[in-house]
C-alpha cells in the first residue's frame, strides 16, 4: 500500500499544486487580505512546505512553528472561517489535479489536525 504522499505524486505534485493553490488563495476575497504585501517568492516556498505536510510528506513542523508562524495573522482576525476557506481551496486544487476523493479527505484531515495550532488556541 503506497503512502498518501506517493499516491498524490510526491514532490513533483507539490511543485505543480503550489501555483494553482496560491493563485486560488490570491483570487479569493475571503482570505487574500492576509497575503497583501507579502513577498510572493517566499510565500510560494512556505506554501510548498505546507503542501508537503498536508500531502503526508516528510516534514519537521511542530505545533510551535504553526503558532509562531500565524500569530500575527490571528492578531489581524484569522479565524475558523479562513481555515475552512483554505481547506476548501486545497480540495479544489487537488480535484483539478485529479486526486481521488478519499485522498483529498485525508489531506483535509491533516490540515484540520493543525487548526488549533494555527489559530493559537
Amino acid at each position, binding site marked *: 500500500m503506497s503512502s498518501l504522499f506517493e499516491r498524490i505524486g510526491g*514532490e513533483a505534485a507539490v511543485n505543480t499544486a503550489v501555483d494553482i493553490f496560491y493563485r486560488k488563495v490570491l483570487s479569493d476575497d475571503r482570505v487574500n487580505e492576509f497575503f497583501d504585501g507579502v513577498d510572493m517568492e517566499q510565500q510560494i*516556498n512556505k506554501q510548498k*512546505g505546507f503542501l*508537503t505536510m498536508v500531502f503526508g510528506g*516528510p*516534514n519537521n*513542523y511542530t505545533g510551535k512553528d504553526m503558532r509562531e508562524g500565524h500569530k500575527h495573522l490571528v492578531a489581524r482576525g484569522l479565524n475558523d472561517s479562513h481555515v475552512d476557506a483554505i481547506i476548501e481551496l486545497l480540495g479544489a486544487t487537488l480535484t483539478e489535479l485529479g486526486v481521488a476523493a478519499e485522498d483529498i479527505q485525508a489531506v483535509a484531515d491533516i490540515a484540520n489536525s493543525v487548526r488549533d495550532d494555527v489559530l493559537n488556541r
Partner: protein
Amino acid sequence: MAHIIFDDERIELDQGQTVLSALLDKGYDIPNSCRAGACQSCMMQAVDGNIPDSAQQGLKETEKAQGYFLACSCMPDEALTIAAHDQSSLCIPATVIEHTIVSNDILKLRLKTEQDFNYRAGQFINVFKDSLSRSYSLASVDGVDDLLELHIRRIENGIVSNWLHHEIKPGDKLDIQQASGNCFYTSETSEEKLLLAGTGTGLAPLIGIARDALQQNHAGDIHLVHGVKQVDDLYMHQLLIDMSQQFDNFYYHASVLQADKVIAPVTTESIDKLILNIAAKPSEWKHYLCGDEIIVNTLKKKLFLAGASMSNIFTDPFISSSD
C-alpha cells in the same frame, strides 16, 4: 567516500547522510525548516563538485545555473565544496571608459576591469562611492562585450547617481563587486517565448537578457516592452528598432503614457495591459520583469494570476534608497 568542504573544513558524510545533517552535527547554524526539499530555507551554493539532481528539485533554472542546492536533500556521491561566505563582498577595481548621457536623466557608463569578471547579462553589481554603494544592472553580455555597461538614472538628491553623472569621467577608477541576481537567460529551452518587460532603467537588464538570448540563438519569440512616462524618457530606442529588424524573432514595444504621436513601436497602452495582450496565455511564456519595485511586483502578480508559473517569472526589482 563522500565528503564536503565548508569553511575550509573537510567533513566526511556517513552513508545516506545529507549535507544539512552533517553540517548541523558539526555545530554549524544552518537555517532550515521542512527538511524535505520544499521550503528552501536551507539553500546553499556549491563552488566545486557535482550536485545530485535531487538536491535541485523545485529550484529556478537561474538558481541551478549558479550552483544553488538544498542542503536537506543533498547526498553527494563524491566531494562537494560549498560556499561558506558570500563571495560577492570582495571589491574589484574598474576604470570608466565611456560616460554618455543617453536621455533626459540617464547615463550610460561603460567600465573595464583588470581581472576576469564573470557574470550573466541581467545580473546587477554594486558600485561604490567611498563606503556607500548602489546596485545597477548589467546591460552588457559577458563574452560578447569587452566592457561592462550600466544605465544610471539620476535621482534627485541621490548621492551616488549625482556623483556618477556629474563628477565621474572617463579614466576614473571605481570599486565594484561581483555580479549577483537571478534575473538572467538560461538556454535550457530555446523554443520558449520570452516576455521582457520593465520601466525606466529596467531596460538595462532587459537589453542584456535579450542580446544574451539572441546571441545563444534562442529560437522562440522574444518581446521586449519598455514602459516610460514621456517620449523623451525613451532611450536606446533606435538600437531596439534596429534589433527588431535584424532578428525575425525579436519584437520591441514602447509603452509611453503621455505621447502625442503614436507610431509603432510606440503605444499609449499601459505596460500591464500591453504585456497581457502580447502574452495572452502567460503560462506559455517565460517572463522577465525589471525596474521600479512596485511596478515589478504588480506585473508579477498579474501574470501569475493570469496563469504564469512562478518558476517562470524572473524579476529584478529596483529598490530605491531614501538618499
